[in-house]
């Protein structure tokens, strides 16, 4: 049995619940035969991946859903071996080059050249080109992005790229100007409740309006999160009636506790205690940026208006330093100490 998120993921462009004009646009692009490189961008959980898969299905038919996972080995110029997991079908190949960190350029160059220099083998295929999907394109290094730009133009005959990113700010301008930009906005409250009710109907029960509202409030536009929370709630309390507490992720409550600690008392022993908790969060693989953001948000909710801008300022300041530095805990601690003073 699969999760509801996967079970009720739309497979066709027609099944998508929101952004109808975007769907019709993608459909006409897929039908025209003159398919450009596309860059999908939007917040997480807005449905970028779903739309990409739907578009592929529109391009090639159901064949794209026969997936296989390969492990490929790439060798860098300095003879280092890189293992990359690659998901592919006969018509497309999907990879996340940012997994290998600073060596992503090698992966990009090798795989794109390999794909680009082979023609479509299947004679019955609807399109002459193959599609390469690059996930987390905004996490690519500048080198890798620079390597993309000429390749994109030169191998236009055999290959189309679909890039998937959460924001266009980190994509260099030459790539942006070569792609069709497709913005996938997060669903509005109404659209989300429509989806939730749709899932509830498929599962054959009715969803009370108050519960739906609560789910939507906690998920802040992230439909994946909303569905996961919804399923968890249903598991905990099958009737979904009355006043129910939406289950929050453990780490989120934990971050809340840290924020409370910081506000309770501003002293050196407290800082030590907070430090222990931060370490624990980090050791559970919660991304430090997320920790910082959540704690800052909690603190901002509870302090005077005059202090709020300052806290946001320091949060932004230390978050940036955290990205540039390498030891995350220092900057988290620095932020906590700064807020305490």
């Amino acid at each position, binding site marked *: 049995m699969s999760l509801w998120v996967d079970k009720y993921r739309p497979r066709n462009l027609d099944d998508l619940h929101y952004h109808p004009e975007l769907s019709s646009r993608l459909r006409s692009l897929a039908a025209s035969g003159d398919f450009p490189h596309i860059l999908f961008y939007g917040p997480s959980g807005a449905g970028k991946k779903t739309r990409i898969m739907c578009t592929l299905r529109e391009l090639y038919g159901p064949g794209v859903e026969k997936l296989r996972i390969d492990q490929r080995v790439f060798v860098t110029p300095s003879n280092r071996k890189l293992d990359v997991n690659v998901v592919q079908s006969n018509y497309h190949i999907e990879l996340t080059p940012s997994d290998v960190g600073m060596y992503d350029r090698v992966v990009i160059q090798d795989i794109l050249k390999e794909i680009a220099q082979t023609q479509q083998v299947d004679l019955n295929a609807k399109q002459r080109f193959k599609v390469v999907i690059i996930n987390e394109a905004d996490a690519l290094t500048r080198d890798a992005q620079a390597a993309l730009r000429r390749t994109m133009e030169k191998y236009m005959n055999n290959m189309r790229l679909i890039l998937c990113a959460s924001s266009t700010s980190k994509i260099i301008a030459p790539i942006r100007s070569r792609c069709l930009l497709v913005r996938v906005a997060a669903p509005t409250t109404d659209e989300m409740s429509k989806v939730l009710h749709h899932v509830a109907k498929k599962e054959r029960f009715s969803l009370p309006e108050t519960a739906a509202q609560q789910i939507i409030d906690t998920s802040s536009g992230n439909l994946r999160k909303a569905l996961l929370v919804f399923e968890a709630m249903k598991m905990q309390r099958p009737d979904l009636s009355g006043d129910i507490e939406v289950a929050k992720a453990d780490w989120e409550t934990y971050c809340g506790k840290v924020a409370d600690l910081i506000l309770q008392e501003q002293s050196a022993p407290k800082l030590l205690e907070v430090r222990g908790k931060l370490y624990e969060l980090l050791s559970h693989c919660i991304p430090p940026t997320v920790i910082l*953001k959540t704690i800052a948000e909690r603190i901002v909710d509870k302090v005077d208006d005059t202090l709020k801008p300052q806290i946001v300022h320091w949060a932004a300041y230390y978050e*940036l330093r955290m990205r540039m530095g390498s030891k995350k805990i220092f900057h988290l601690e620095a932020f906590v100490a700064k807020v305490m003073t």
Partner: protein
Amino acid sequence: MSTSTLPQFGSRPTHSAQENTKLQPWVEKYRPKTIDDVSSQEHTVAVLRKSLQSTNLPHMLFYGPPGTGKTSTILALARQLFGPDLFRARVLELNASDERGISVVRDKIKTFARETPKHVSVSSDGKTYPCPPYKLIILDEADSMTQDAQSALRRIMETYSRITRFCLVCNYVTRIIEPLASRCSKFRFRPLAQGSSQARVEMIASAEGVQAEDGVLPLILQLAGGDLRKAITYLQTAQRLHGAIDPPTPITAMSIHEISGVVPVETIRGLLRAMGVDPDSGLDASLAKRGFQGVRTAVKQIGREGWSAGQVLEQIHDALIPLSSIPAIPKAQAALAIAECDKGLCEGGDEELQLLDCCLRIWDVMSKA
């Protein structure tokens, strides 16, 4: 590696040429064929025409903002010099997508530069080309070459200057090391004037049979801001979208806005209002009353709709700075906040935090003013 150095034209197989032209980006399709076709770089073209007549080229350094015709000019010049037959043998084009570390400079460029070409002047298509007895090496996007590779280049440039000419193409001349820059004659490419780029875009539009509503072409040029490649790409993408619908509809201003990723004016105005600035009349104390919560909701909303923070920032700047009723000091402080936020974004800071911080700082100075 060998295939990556092929120039754009000449490498295409002829049997499917027709289909290829249809799928080709218009940017490639309408690249100028001779240097006289290059739009609005009169000064550079005049100098190059002189050197074409005397068939003696200096080493060259082309610099200027993207989309002003640097690559087009050098490709057209090379074509006029060598003709289609010898183009592949005489011209080596390297750009950032090729491996370009110090080893490549040493091996590849050296080998290419070492073979002495002969003087040939007959060509297959009946025309005669000057075909001077030297080779041309085009280093596109030279500002992304490493310092080491650039230093390795300087002696090579001098040693082989009898049989090779280098042409460096870059956006920022400051990133080219001084010894290299002093070996080249520099050509600056200015952003295109409205008139000449409009003529070019109109020519392409009519050649491709593009139907557009009134005011769409000027809008494209305005959004492209002097970058002709961007303008042509916008035009082609819009045409793809509208031509794919059956029956084809004329291009609307709305879809151009969507393609270029520009945030709607209304969203920006909403954000400005939350920061205590009236988009038309300047400061408005009553607007700033909503305070922290107002700014935060506005920023969150922008994040949810998926707009990129860099673009939002740019548009805030464009909307805020021309307002004459804001006193100079708050305006300067706002500009400072925007600049710092932009730096933060460039270095990879979290978008929402950075934008929120910047907007709060602007709100702060505006409510105190």
